[in-house]
């Protein structure tokens, strides 16, 4: 019930933002949403105690699927691009998950990183796809309705908001119920979960699949927002950024990734504008401060306030 209220309120707020805010803010909100969806997937995976340093793989697959549809097959429908991006990433995750679900800890993290870097290497060598320069994509319709120039990004933001809210509600249901407790069980004591008759491999596999599909959706959203794809999206620094946002927000709440992604985008923009020579250091210091003072992420602030109230 409470989740539904928050969902409706968020959707209303984002729709208002999409209709009223200046273009640059609409764009930033869109990027924050796209990254929030990816990080939410990471959060699902982190419930099982696993951190992927390779979500850039699925982010990139989602983005390139959307862009290739536009570029080579001349499909210019945003809705098709979003669904195809999520599906393609989910498919790849279903395949690689078979292998990765058998690994834990640093081995899991490194293997996921390795797969994302393979895609990066392949894209960099593909001159037909523009190599490191990448290429543009254009979405001109949404569910077959032609978009007037100038409003398309506002429509994409509303579409992105609907995607994000639906995904967040699903994740909330999933993690709040039996599956969420099973995931935490795998993190805390895998052997015991197995003795109780559940399959840790299956739990990890399904969570990995969910994380992959969500990263693909996020990638397609980002590609629509930016209008350009390039191999940087699959590079390990992009994957690292998702982990950064996850740590920034903390893993306790479904809303945390979206709040953290908004703060991250705002922080980066403010740092770039007011400290163009030391913006990376500003971000690094923010990260250090959070790890030192709020080890469970920014969400601890909200929790603290609620407890004291």
């Amino acid at each position, binding site marked *: 019930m409470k989740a539904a209220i928050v969902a409706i309120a968020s959707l209303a707020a984002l729709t208002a933002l999409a209709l009223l805010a200046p273009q640059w803010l609409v764009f930033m909100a869109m990027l924050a949403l796209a990254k929030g969806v990816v990080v939410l997937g990471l959060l699902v995976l982190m419930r099982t105690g696993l951190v992927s340093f390779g979500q850039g793989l699925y982010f990139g697959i989602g983005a390139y699927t959307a862009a290739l549809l536009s570029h080579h097959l001349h499909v210019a429908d945003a809705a098709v691009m979003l669904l195809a991006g999520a599906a393609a990433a989910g498919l790849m995750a279903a395949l690689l998950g078979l292998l990765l679900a058998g690994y834990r800890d640093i081995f899991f993290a490194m293997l996921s990183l390795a797969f994302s870097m393979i895609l990066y290497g392949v894209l*960099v*060598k593909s001159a037909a796809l523009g190599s*490191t320069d*990448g290429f543009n994509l254009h979405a001109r319709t949404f569910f077959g309705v032609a978009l007037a120039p100038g409003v398309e990004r506002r429509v994409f933001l509303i579409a992105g908001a609907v995607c994000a809210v639906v995904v967040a509600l699903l994740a909330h249901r999933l993690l709040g119920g039996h599956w969420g407790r099973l995931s935490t069980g795998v993190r805390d004591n895998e052997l015991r979960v197995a003795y109780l008759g559940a399959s840790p491999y299956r739990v990890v596999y399904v969570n990995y699949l969910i994380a992959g599909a969500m990263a693909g959706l996020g990638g397609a959203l980002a590609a629509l927002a930016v209008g*350009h794809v390039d191999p*940087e999206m699959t590079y390990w620094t992009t994957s690292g950024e998702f982990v950064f946002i996850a740590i920034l927000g903390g893993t306790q709440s479904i809303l945390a990734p979206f709040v953290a992604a*908004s703060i991250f985008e705002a922080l980066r923009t403010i740092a770039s504008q007011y400290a163009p*020579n030391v913006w990376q250091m500003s971000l690094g210091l923010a990260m250090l401060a959070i790890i030192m003072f709020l080890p469970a992420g920014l969400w601890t602030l909200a929790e603290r306030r609620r407890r004291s109230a």
Partner: protein
Amino acid sequence: MRASSSFGLRAGLAAFALLLAVPASLAQQPLKVGIVTFLSGPAAGPFGVPARNAAELTAELLNAGTVPAPYSQKGFGGTPIELVIIDEAGGPQKQVAEYRNLVPRVDIVIGYISSGDCLAIAPVAEEQKKLTVLFDCGTPRIFEDASYKYVFRTGPTGTMDNVSVALYLVERNPNVKSIAGLNQNYAWGQDSWADFENAMKTLKPGIEVKTSQMPKLFAGQFGAEITTLLGSGAEVIHSSMWGGDLEGLVLQGAPRGLFEKHKVVLSAGEPAINRLGTRIPDGTILGARGPFGPFAPDTDLARWLKTTYQDRYHIPPNYASFKMTQAILGVKAAYEKAKGSSNEAPDQDKIIAAFENLTFEGPGGPVKMALGKGHQAIMDAAVGTTKVEAGELKIVDIARYSADKVNPPDGVKSEVWIKSGLKK
């Protein structure tokens, strides 16, 4: 209410945006020029910072009115200019975000060194209807795959770099029979090698390509590639490397005799002169992506940039510095042409109309906005050979190629033009 903190943040940002969007139309308000160049990362040292330095120097001296004719009027048409500088590092996705944030704060944007950033920014500039001048990126794809109203590029494309070194090479070694390449494995390296290889095949049909080595970007160590090249038997080795990779190639290749055994062509080698100096072996063929730096013609404008830059930064301006100053002067020329003798500031459409097909004088010589329906510059190309004289590196045997000879006609794609015989 859990959603409130994120909504509060967004509302705050929205209020902030409205503040920034208030038009700065009061009289004698300076014109704001956004400058985007690498301030961090591997491209900052050879390109980004020299370009930023040139931008600051040029803006200051323009406002003081001390730039030689025809740019002696203060600022742009008497209005002072003010720079807003941001970092280009972080990849195209971040750059699109920063560009969108920059647009409401400035009147004109000048920037972008990376071709990936240029490709991503161009459609956004068109959408935002903001006059945007690309100053350095090389890929011809920008105006060959699309056409833009609000986007201009005052630097020549990468096409002429490799066509001109190929012409230079064939004129000096008419019997050249084999070539090999050592280029970084990313878009710039791949495109440069393809242009050079195709130009050589056009100029010398039947030429043999012994090997094309493509180490990854910023590898820094080229031991294996140098061994392969030494054993390849190729007469000529082409490389479009820059920055740390180029320094690595010279420092690792020279002691092993790479430069003695082969004729080495460094198509974008000029920025390394200031760092490597006499360590670049004699007889290396060097390009500067246009008539910049030591290749600049002897004009008042070139002398002005060289002396003022050297006085302030204690190092000569390289091609990135030249191209940045050229972009600012190009916008100034268009602005003043649009303004004419009226007292009012010209609107953006007038500046764009004046900029299209404009010919203006840059520190590297005349610049013609001739391609991409008048939005893409062409310039003469210059190539030279290194020679150490009295303990100083000199560029000798400089050859100049007229702009029409090393650039395709408007509407013809570079790749097709090179393959079909470099015809006018």
